């Protein structure tokens, strides 16, 4: 079904007649738009993305330009959200931090989905000892809160943007792995997979060429929610000073200033925008994930 319209010939009574056959993505899009919060959230996320991509155009200041004559200023025409402890423009930092958060979210999900999909496919399709080994590994990883593992490893490797991305990515693969495995267990017994086996297609070809397209729907939903989880984890780590390091702005390390009570009290403008950005972004992503789940679920 690659075309969205087609010609259907009916039997004797009906003459030839144009009937619209909807493409699957169109059905999904129609279902998605029924979920009002999801559509609204998608708009919000688009705005976040535009702000992040267009950061150099939108922010009139360099996010790491220090101006010691203008420290701890309140909002003004020149500095919309005021300035921080070294006179850097908070609005510019919030917008540029969006880039970092979205980068961390998307890049770490690419890693976790990649690892999870391959291991999940292996476990589900091969079964036996491989399946057992991979599943016990997911058990171990899922019993442990990611933040504790990341903190332990960060103590040794030291913090940093790409280290944070890899750590988050390598910790979040168990859930997509299990989803893919569960789907593969079902697929393994379906006719089209068995047919491919019978004509002698190699295992890797069956797994990735025939079976894999059937797990894309679960992976899309999981990836969306994974981005939100990764953004939260990065912000938390950076808040503790163990994730993305200054001068690179991140919503998490912008919150770090609030660990000092007098700064929290007197300089609300330095940390509140980052906090609001985190909450709005994460809630929006979760609603979009919800909308996608409903849109892509064939049972509904």
């Amino acid at each position, binding site marked *: 079904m690659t075309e969205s319209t087609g010609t259907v010939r009916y039997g004797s009574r009906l003459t030839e007649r144009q009937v619209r056959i909807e493409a699957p993505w169109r059905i999904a899009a129609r279902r998605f738009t029924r979920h009002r919060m999801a559509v609204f959230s998608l708009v919000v996320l688009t705005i976040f993305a535009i702000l992040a991509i267009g950061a150099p155009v939108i922010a009139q200041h360099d996010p790491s330009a220090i101006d010691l004559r203008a420290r701890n200023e309140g909002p003004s025409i020149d500095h919309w959200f005021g300035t921080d402890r070294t006179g850097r423009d908070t609005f510019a930092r919030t917008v540029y931090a969006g880039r970092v958060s979205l980068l961390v979210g998307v890049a770490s999900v690419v890693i976790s989905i990649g690892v999870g999909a391959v291991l999940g496919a292996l476990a589900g399709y091969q079964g036996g000892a491989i399946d057992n080994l991979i599943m*016990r590994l997911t*058990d*171990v990883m899922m*019993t*442990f*809160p*990611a*933040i*504790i593992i990341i*903190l*332990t*490893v*960060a*103590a*040794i490797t030291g913090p940093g943007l790409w280290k944070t991305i890899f750590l988050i990515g390598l910790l979040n693969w168990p859930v997509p792995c299990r989803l893919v495995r569960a789907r593969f267990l079902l697929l393994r017994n379906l006719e089209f997979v068995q047919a491919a086996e019978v004509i002698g297609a190699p295992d890797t070809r069956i797994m990735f060429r025939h079976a894999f397209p059937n797990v894309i729907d679960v992976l899309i939903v999981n990836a969306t929610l994974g981005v939100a989880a990764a953004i*939260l984890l990065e*912000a*938390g780590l950076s*808040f*503790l*000073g*163990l994730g993305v390091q200054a001068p690179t702005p991140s919503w998490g390390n912008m*919150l770090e200033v*609030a*660990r000092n*009570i007098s700064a*929290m*009290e007197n300089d*609300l403008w330095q*940390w509140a925008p980052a*906090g609001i950005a*985190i*909450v709005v972004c*994460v*809630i929006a992503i*979760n609603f979009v994930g919800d909308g996608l789940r409903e849109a892509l679920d064939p049972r509904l």
Partner: protein
Amino acid sequence: MGRYIQRRLMINIPVLIIITILSFLLLQATPGDPLSAYVPPDSPLTEAQRDALRERLGLNAPLPERYLIWLKEALQGNLGVSARTGQDVLELIGARIGPTLLLMVTAMTIGVVSGLLLGVLTAVRRNTPIDMLISSGALFGISVPVYLAGLVGLYIFSVRLGWFPTGGYTTPGDTGFLDRLHHLILPALVIAIQYVASTMRYTRSSMIEALSQDYVRTAQAKGLAFRPVVLRHALRNALIPIATIIGTYIPNLLAGAVFIETIFTWPGMGRLFVESVNARDYPVVMGLTLILAIIILTANLLTDLTYAIIDPRIRYD
């Protein structure tokens, strides 16, 4: 039942062994003299004494043997000494378990009790304005990360309103119960938010399902009053899945403690963890990882057992 317990133990023990191996390997990957994990930084040992100690602790042996020696020492309670203060790691951690436990138990009690009440309320008053208000509040509650809730709570209730102290465990010099309570309430409430929200959501859906069962209709048809039907018939059965959810809270509570103890300068394990990571105090970091692992695995085991005890309909063999 016996065989079930046995099987759960068999699953958890290998996991614990894997975790000890991983902690050991990570500790090996840390820079610096491995002996510094066992000797205080300012100890007046001669080079010959250091060599003798290295030999006794097996630091010159091949890796697998070193692991076994490390494990033996660890089992006897010797997790080394802090690279910062030279204090015994186990003692250092032991002093922090109490405050963390106090915070966690309080937060969990608040979370579970109010979550249950709100869950029953929203299930009984399903689709009324009250239900919608509480349900959307809960959705918000699980979306807000604990560190942000902590910062906002601290800002509003301590800094602006001045209702609570801005952090710490006690006021120096004051050992009274009320002072303790005064310091405890805000961080405990902040941590509880997520658990109120998630307990409420589980209770609500579990209760709605239980209320639609035949035995509830039968009880009502017999002429029983509404309240006993809800509490004694529906809630009892609705509690079964909820009991297991509560067990899964413990790892997350520990993760939340890392943030909340840092924000509220609470002298618990979470804050010690963050401090030690920042100071590259590897022996303490590894000791904490190991102890947290044991706590989490024990909690998982207890959850599994609770599930087996609480629901006699389920047989596990």
